[in-house]
């Protein structure tokens, strides 16, 4: 057995400290704020005006209580459809329902792309209008459409008043909702 000269205790302690800093900060930083994307879309009851707020990327629709949107009509299957936000656009999926899913009057096969304003019917229910934005009733909400980085600092954003020919006045913030339709969905991937 050759004599081993062990490394300095303090050196080893420093190594541990460095590694601890790296691993623990990284592991714990996940918990600082959850990556919460605020997704906004709506299903509006054509007749009653009731608004279903779509806040998940995938929403289950059906008669079962465990669905995200519960429709109590008898013609609606327990697990009727799924409304999903995909790379290209929003889509509606018919998940083996009995009554079928109708988009703008036509029964869909398995899935169908959706665009803003499409009218959707589940089985024999009334129609729902799909809006790919958050629909508010009276007040204009100041919520941004996306919020993927909580540390997003908008100090660089130019809040100068827009040229008047665009039809907008005052600050940028108030007009977010109105401009949603112009967002290109490519950017949502």
């Amino acid at each position: 057995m050759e004599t081993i000269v062990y490394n300095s205790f303090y050196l080893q302690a420093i190594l541990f400290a460095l590694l601890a800093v790296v691993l623990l900060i990284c592991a714990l930083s996940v918990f600082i704020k959850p990556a919460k994307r605020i997704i906004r879309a709506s299903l509006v009851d054509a007749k009653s005006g009731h608004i279903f707020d779509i806040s998940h990327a995938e929403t289950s629709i059906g008669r079962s209580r465990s669905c995200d949107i519960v429709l109590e009509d008898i013609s609606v299957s327990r697990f009727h459809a799924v409304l999903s936000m995909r790379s290209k656009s929003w889509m509606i999926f018919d998940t083996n329902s009995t009554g079928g899913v109708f988009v703008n009057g036509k029964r869909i096969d398995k899935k169908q792309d959706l665009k803003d304003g499409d009218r959707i019917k589940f089985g024999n229910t009334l129609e729902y209008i799909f809006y790919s934005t958050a629909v508010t009733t009276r007040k204009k909400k100041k919520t941004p459409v996306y919020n993927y980085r909580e540390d997003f600092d908008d100090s660089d954003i130019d809040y100068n008043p827009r040229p008047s020919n665009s039809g907008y006045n005052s600050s940028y913030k108030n007009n977010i909702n109105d401009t949603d339709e112009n967002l290109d969905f490519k950017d949502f991937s």
Partner: protein
Amino acid sequence: MRTVNKRIVFLVVIAIIFFVFVDILMFSMFSHSEEYAMNSKNSHLFSNGVLVNAGTIKDTNGVALASSKNGKRYYSSDSVVREAMLHALGDDKGYISGGVENTFRKELCGYNIVTGVTSTSNPTLYLTLDSQISADAYEKLGEHKGCIIVANYKTGKIIAMATSPSYDIYNVPDDIEDNEKYEGVYIDRIFKGLYTPGSTFKTVTSLAAIENISDIYDQTFTCNGSYKYDDGEIICMDTHGTLTFQQALNRSCNVAFAQIANEVGASKLESAFNESGLANSYETPDRITTQASSFGDIDKSSKSQVGWTGIGQYKTLVNPYAYLIYMCAIANGGTAYKPYYVDYSKTSGGRYLYQAQGVDSGVKINSDYAKQLKELMRSDVRDYYGDYMFGNVTMCGKSGTAQVEGQDNSNSLFVGFSYDDSFPYASVAVVENAGAGLKYAGQLTADIMNEIYNKSN
């Protein structure tokens, strides 16, 4: 999505269970860390089972007995010291279980959970022993097997000890397994040995007598060389005539003591045996478990058997270490510490890893009886053996010559202690297959006691 999201809790449960078990593992590993690290398979510390990466062991005078250098273990340059110290230090194969290099590994390695095996402060372990005196004692045992142990009866510190046979760790004999000369070589006779006590047992019988016979000092005994009982005969070494109790002890009259034993009775005799602490197995502070002595399974109704027991020539077997405690108790007013030889272990930084403390042996003899025994044993030397034999030491003692079947000569035994408190040493010596107790064990004791005396003055 809600439903799927709810099920995420399954992962949380798994993670938490994992975390709990990791903590249990961590706790287990931490609490066993010393045990694991001290395993002789650990190449950081051991090489072929030998502790190589450890601190130095020194005797009470600072003489180095064992040390490590460049991954090898070195011992004293004096071969007699090496042989004498072998059982105290331990061997490289682990045959000698009581060796300090085995029992005090931890305190030799300075392992602790924070620094692991890397601690650079190699600790030094100090023994209470004087290696030179012990070596002399070993040398004086010569060709004989046996042992001697001398301890301070006030503190419990063992100043000298030797057990024979032993061997030189640098030159292990080829015939160590076969040669009768090395029979029992790995055993430390002090801690593990059992001997027929012979006349030294009369110190126990005397205790029984003092305790149970109120007029023992007034009684007289007549010895005609032998005494016949219904079922056996007690033979005496001499024809002593009429003796008092004290004289009977001085001259070690078997006839007298056989009668005393029977007068006391077998059960009271056994009580005294137990009271003296001889029956116990001790966990010494040096982490050795001693062999318990035994009174012997005798027919208590047989007078001859009781008689023979009373003079230590029957089934009774005594362990030297326990015997030493008895001697210390007598000398020390009825109580005694457990003798020990590992003093303390200190890192080079001054931190104590181990410090011996006196541990009460649990032996309790009435202090008045102890005093009487002390006087009786003093008179053995003063009135019979002769003070000249013990030189500068005012000695108290009792010799014993034990006949052993199969041996040409008797075992020679001597137990005793110094009368003078300012030189508070007690001793037990056994020289096997030698002859008369006083001539061999007694002389050995005298030599060593004087050597200690000279060294301390």
